[in-house]
């Protein structure tokens, strides 16, 4: 039996009971909040970037205080690379990676990973697929070859593909029950259209899912899963030499290939204001989404937009939440966000509000969208800048979170000094910057307004607001009929 002993040492071992001494009698001054000293700065180890012998890029950062290792493989392929006729192919390929790989079938692989106390999680997005190994250091040598099998040698066994197909078709059936899922599908489609990858549900359609073959999946994997289209992010209690040797042994034979260049089209901006009301009879709340197309991640306005959105709807004390939750009590929480992606994603304000106040809630949302174009206070500026900048160090506690941060550098090709500059860049945002980006990106006259709720209770009130044309849809208009699941 080997023993890992972890000790967070506070200068003395174990329990330290201090004696009572110097208790002060003076009552604290509560007339104002205490003055704070200067905020601390975080010094991170530098990120080491290098290549393995086959050209596979590595990003490495040590984190030595807990014996854990996180290894994320990020492959630059996602929903945006789906062929037009096969929506859902990238996502299904990702799902199949750990359904049997190398010599192990799906059950054996799952058991082998679980038995190590490790996990391998596969995720797929619009532009990336990630395979994340999280393991105790003591199990690294057993876990790493399993990770390599999942990335390089998925089996795509026909019975496993069929099993996942049925799983996903059933998810499409269940989406009919979920007001939030319904709102998301119609919102994305309204903003981006059904010819743009951001406008199509990531599962694809019942038809594309039914038609997808094992050969399609194999071919997609063979084309995109190559080392010159990927990066390995390593964070944890392991030295660069130790990990490099191990990565060479499991990924060194991975051969490069030619990857088709993505031709992503820019989404077309919303040009007028329309309301889509999806009827969900008996709903206790209405799901509201209001938004338009925002901007891509590499915009120079990123920092100003982050501060502006924090004031508008990015935190608890933001205007939208204070108004709709704290002042009016219409909702458990209301927020707004920018989805900064490789292509411009959405700017969205959203909440789930009590059915009876659906129209009033829309009025308050628009009040706030209008008001942010008028002015912000210096107090709001300080709060928003500090809230974003000073919390930044807390993102670097856990190996999985740190690896996630490093992954963003790779995906968005952010500058080398990004982490060191982040805090200063946010603190340098001025009121003028915030007003400029608010007026450039927030246009309350040109937004899509989605409401998923009980039509009978809410339609008259929503119509009376005169926000624009109101289109009423059924859940089936949005999602189609619940698909048939083969074998049932």
């Amino acid at each position: 039996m080997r023993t890992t002993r972890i000790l967070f040492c506070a200068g003395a071992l174990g329990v330290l009971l201090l004696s009572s001494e110097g208790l002060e009698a003076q009552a604290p001054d509560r007339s104002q909040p205490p003055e704070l000293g200067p905020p601390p700065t975080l010094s991170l180890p530098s990120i080491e970037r290098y290549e393995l012998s086959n050209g596979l890029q590595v990003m490495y950062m040590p984190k030595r205080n807990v014996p854990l290792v996180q290894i994320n493989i990020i492959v630059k392929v996602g929903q945006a690379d789906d062929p037009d006729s096969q929506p859902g192919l990238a996502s299904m390929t990702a799902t199949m990676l750990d359904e049997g790989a190398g010599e192990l079938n799906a059950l054996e692989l799952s058991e082998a990973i679980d038995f190590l106390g490790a996990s391998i999680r596969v995720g797929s997005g619009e532009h990336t697929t990630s395979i994340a190994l999280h393991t105790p250091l003591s199990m690294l040598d057993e876990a790493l070859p399993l990770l390599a099998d999942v990335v390089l040698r998925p089996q795509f066994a026909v019975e496993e593909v069929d099993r996942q197909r049925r799983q996903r078709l059933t998810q499409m059936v269940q989406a009919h029950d979920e007001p939030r899922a319904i709102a998301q599908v119609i919102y994305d489609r309204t903003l981006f259209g059904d010819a743009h990858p951001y406008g199509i549900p990531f599962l694809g359609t019942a038809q594309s899912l039914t038609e997808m073959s094992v050969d399609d999946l194999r071919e997609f994997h063979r084309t995109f899963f190559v080392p010159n289209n990927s990066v390995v992010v390593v964070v944890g209690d392991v030295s660069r030499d130790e990990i490099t040797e191990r990565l060479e042994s499991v990924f060194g034979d991975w051969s490069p290939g030619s990857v088709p260049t993505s031709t992503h089209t820019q989404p077309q901006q919303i040009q007028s204001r329309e309301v889509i009301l999806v009827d969900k009879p008996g709903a206790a709340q209405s799901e509201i989404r209001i938004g338009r197309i925002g901007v891509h991640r590499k915009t120079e306005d990123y920092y100003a937009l982050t501060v502006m959105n924090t004031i508008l709807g990015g935190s608890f004390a933001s205007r939208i939440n204070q108004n709709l939750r704290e002042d009016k009590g219409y909702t458990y929480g209301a927020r707004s966000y920018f989805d900064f992606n490789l292509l411009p994603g959405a700017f969205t304000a959203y909440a789930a509000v009590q059915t009876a106040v659906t129209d009033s809630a829309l009025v308050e949302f628009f009040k706030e969208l209008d008001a942010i174009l008028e002015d912000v206070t210096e107090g709001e500026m300080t709060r928003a800048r500090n809230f974003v900048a000073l919390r930044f160090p807390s993102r670097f506690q856990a190996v999985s979170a740190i690896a996630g941060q490093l992954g963003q550098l790779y995906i968005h090709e952010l500058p080398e000094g990004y982490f060191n500059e982040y805090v200063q860049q946010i603190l340098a945002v001025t009121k003028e910057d915030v007003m400029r980006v608010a007026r450039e990106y927030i246009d309350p006259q040109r937004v899509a307004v989605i409401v998923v709720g009980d039509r009978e209770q809410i339609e008259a009130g929503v119509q009376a607001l005169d926000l624009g044309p109101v289109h009423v849809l059924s859940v089936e208009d949005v999602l189609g009929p619940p698909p048939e699941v083969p074998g049932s």
Partner: protein
Amino acid sequence: MRRCLAVLAAVALLPAAAPAQETQIEVPYTRFVLPNGLNVILHEDHTTPTVSVNMWYDVGSGREKPGRTGFAHLFEHILFEGSENVPEGKFDEWLESAGGNNNGSTNSDRTNYWEDIPSNALELALFLESDRMGHLLGSLSPETVDGQRNVVKNERRQSYENRPYGMAFLTLDSSMYAPDHPYSWPTIGSMEDLSAASHEDVVEFFNTYYTPANASLSIAGAIDTEETRRLVEHWFSDVEGRGKPAPITAPTPYLAYEKRMVLEDRVQLPRIYMCWLTAPLHTPGDAEMDIVSGVLTDGKTSRLYRRLVYDLQIAQDVFSFQGSSAMSSQFCIISTARAGHSLDEIETVIQEELDRLKAEPPSKREVQRIQNGYEASFLDRLERIGGFGGKADALNAYYTRTGNPDYFNEDLSRYMSLGPTDIQSAIQTFLRDDGRVVLSIVPQGKPELAAGRPSTE
């Protein structure tokens, strides 16, 4: 004291013969008690220049009176609305201006609050926590209560009423416990009771339960222990001691027969919930049931996942959990039928697998697979200082339930010391066929899809 962080005998990268190993964890702390009765726990971790201030009050929805369900949680909301020296809205505004984040939560046993802040803002968090502990009532108006009443009603709508299958646990709580048992009503409360809560209720609840002696303050992160002790003593010195409520007691609940119920909901697919009463938190049988849950539904090779979802493909999913609480726990198995398959088919398989485990213990490897997962999860718990489940929260949880803040090792060894026959005997003891609740949630208008025949209860 300066940063000092050691890993003793760290495991070298050597091929492992078998994953059987024992992780020894130590989270050193300093504990002291203020004259007003407040317990304080300090732990240094200088990984990032961040501090978590965590407060536990030993009161949850179990303390509520009839006609006032949901009050403990409503009170938690009110505690963010300002105190005598913190005007309404400033609690969040000041914390955010310092780069801080905060939250709170309520369950049947306790209420917890935390502020995660840059290390320079420690004193702000202490000011805010001490002000609402010592100087709350002078600032409270009926309007404050009304405002949060509406927010909480919307929380109930969002988390339960407007969510598919969302009414399941509200129904299960009341069917598993006698009406006078503190766990028979849900923490979120009923709409009627939330409407009835008054300003007088707030005053009484505060005076009885929000006393320093009924609370524990835990601070973890980039702190200096001596200096932090001085600051805690300073900010909490004017908080009056107001005594400690008598411990809560309740008769041991018992389900003497099988109850069957059916609920109709706006859902496409029927779902079955099978629930039992089990051993309270940290008592013999509690860790066993966590491992039972893993053997049944954790991973593709778990007993129920493999048969229901993988082999037979009659279910879309299957989950189970041991929901541990101080006076009694609940163990539930939950599974959703695939289109064209019935809850009866699913229940039959669940019953077969339970019978099999009652007759024959799980394999050593099955149990070890789950134990290894627990062992690794204890390492994960050392990485985060703040938020729910971070180290500050864990130190308070362990102190409140066991008297020992650094109960990490003891907790882990509850799991690591068990063998297959312990798991078998826990299943025999707790998962009785003649003492459980079986709830079916079915699409509207289709009560015939319920599992078995609902009893008249």
